[in-house]
């Protein structure tokens, strides 16, 4: 048997395994962007600035990890933006600034988030509605329902203890160096996600994104695998809602457009839309890159209106470059 041809094609160095697909591209892009930021504004490299960057990036990282689970299993979740908005508004209205209600409301948010994920998952897997449509519908439903409930604009306020995770850090002295709790939350989320993806569930999930029939015939309940991915996505959207609500309080626009941000981050990280390829770390790098890009725009004092255009060009160029590498 000739195996030389096979092995020369199959044995990939560990680096490539670590960051398969287009992930190298995005890591290089991230380093480049950070370097440019530091050159323009050396104070960005100071611990305080970095921590501020980490604090505002944390929610997107959490969302990207959630979106990663869904995308790698071959689906989409367009409902996370609406869900983040809904959760913040629900929290504000129910607790209305009352500290005593913080924990009960958090519990309720958790239940609500999981319920949304469950519906997304079951409609997609059992009713066979393409997830693009399921979650698009869910996006509309959440958007409308939450405004219907609050009469169009959010009411109430978030309690101070609710806001600690997203706003405060350790040690809690404003204006001094602090490690934001949001960073810790994001690190824990990424860490757990990495562990989860190395567990049987994670491997089965990626394999299901690659070939669902083979995984089903291997004894897995593919519908339940994917439903769990949607549950994770909704759960992490809820976590992100706690961080975002904590960070900035409640506004009417909260959460809008986050679904596209999260998907963009994941794809930028080299995770293939359609499933079966890509790592959690890559998704996280994608999220960091996207946020770093926004920071760079700000540092360059690029006119606000031009930024979407530059973002679009970089997005297409990065994904095209990664596609080029993968196809050869």
């Amino acid at each position, binding site marked *: 048997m000739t195996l030389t041809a096979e092995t020369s094609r199959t044995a990939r160095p560990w680096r490539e395994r670590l960051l398969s697909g287009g992930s190298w591209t995005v890591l290089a892009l991230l380093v480049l962007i950070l370097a440019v930021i530091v050159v323009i504004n050396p104070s960005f490299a100071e611990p305080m600035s970095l921590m501020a960057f980490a604090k505002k990036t944390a929610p997107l990282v959490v969302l990207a990890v959630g979106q990663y689970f869904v995308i790698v299993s071959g689906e989409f979740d367009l409902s996370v933006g609406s869900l983040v908005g809904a959760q913040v508004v629900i929290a504000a209205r129910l607790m209305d600034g009352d500290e005593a209600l913080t924990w009960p409301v958090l519990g309720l948010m958790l239940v609500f988030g999981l319920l949304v994920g469950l519906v997304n998952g079951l*409609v997609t897997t059992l*009713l*066979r*509605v*393409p997830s*693009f*449509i*399921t979650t*698009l*519908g*869910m*996006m*509309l*439903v959440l*958007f*409308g*329902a939450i*405004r*219907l409930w609050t009469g*169009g604009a959010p009411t109430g306020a978030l309690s101070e203890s609710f806001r600690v995770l997203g706003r405060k850090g350790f040690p809690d002295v404003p204006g001094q160096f602090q490690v934001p709790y949001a960073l810790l939350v994001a690190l824990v989320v990424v860490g757990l996600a990495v562990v989860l993806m190395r567990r049987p569930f994670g491997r089965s999930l990626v394999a299901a994104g690659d070939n669902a029939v083979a995984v089903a015939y291997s004894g897995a309940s593919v519908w339940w695998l994917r439903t769990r991915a949607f549950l994770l996505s909704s759960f992490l959207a809820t976590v992100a809602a706690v961080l975002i609500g904590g960070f900035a309080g409640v506004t009417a626009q909260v959460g809008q457009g986050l679904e*596209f941000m999260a*998907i*963009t981050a994941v*794809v930028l990280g080299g995770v293939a*839309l*359609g499933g079966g390829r890509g790592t959690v770390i890559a998704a996280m790098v994608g999220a960091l890159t996207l946020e770093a890009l926004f920071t760079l725009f700000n540092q360059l004092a690029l*006119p*606000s*209106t*031009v*930024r*979407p*255009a*530059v*973002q*679009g*060009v970089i*997005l*297409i160029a990065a*994904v*095209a470059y990664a*596609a*080029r590498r993968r*196809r050869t």
Partner: protein
Amino acid sequence: MTRRYHLGSTEIVYLALAGILLVAGVLVAVRGGNLFAQQNVSYMLTQTSLLGFVAIGQTLVVLCRSLDLSVGYVVALCSLVGATTMAGDPSRVWLGVVAALAVAAGVGLVNGLVISGLRVNPFIATLGTGLIIKGFLDTRFKGPEGEVPFGFQTFGYTRIGPVPVSTVVMLLVAAAVFVLLTRTRPGYHMFAVGGNLDVARLSGVRTGRVLVLAHVLCSLCAGVAGLLIAARFGTGNALVYSYGLDLDSIAAVVLGGTLLFGGRGSVVGTVGGVAILAVLDTAFNVLDVNPFFKDVLRGVIIIAAVALYARRQLDPASRRARFTTGGGDAA
């Protein structure tokens, strides 16, 4: 063996449309109104035309297993290009139309080339071009701009009986696309590209060209929608991109029975899908439904309809059963 007549997806779409019309008509009648009164019918038809143009174009790319998230921005861009080129001068109308459509075709060309040439996932590619256009619009235009001469505004306002001219044009475009898909090579090849790219390529279909053509036509349709906007507004407006035409058009296409994963569908179905959304809009309006409740209902109906189609595609009738359950009669 009993022959069962199988309903195609397009028939189901129109059955659903009839059902919704009936239910909505009864609901409105109970409230003392008439859904089929002149103003409601023309409202319904007007609402179909804008989304109709965009969705017809979207059908072509979805058939090719692509999608276009930039259509909303193209509509906005073309409304501005058209209106600023016309600049209120009746003799420049044709120039405005040509300029708007040329810009639209250019965007479609970029979309198509990025997707087929650079192999960027269409979701990302069109999201990217959409962002680029948004940046351009926000930078270049600070609000409504340009002026559409009165003559061209008739495209947006004139009606033949209860039927707006724009709806007639939309139906003509739909008819043209129908002919394209059922009577021309590029149309045949779109089904092939969406059905199986490799098969198409091995059969000599120039898949890249077909995809580019679909995107150019999709953007052109969006361009016509932009001109309609300009005609109705009397000016161009960048904020049109926030109307959600991108996702709405995809929803309408899928509601019309076209497979989101390409290869199967029809423009007739899409028109039905758009009509369903327009009937809902009209009924909600006449019934004075809370605008937020409309979003909820829309979401639920889209999911429910697609679930219904998916159910039918699962129908095991296509698998030839040798033994019926319960009976032991061998074939």
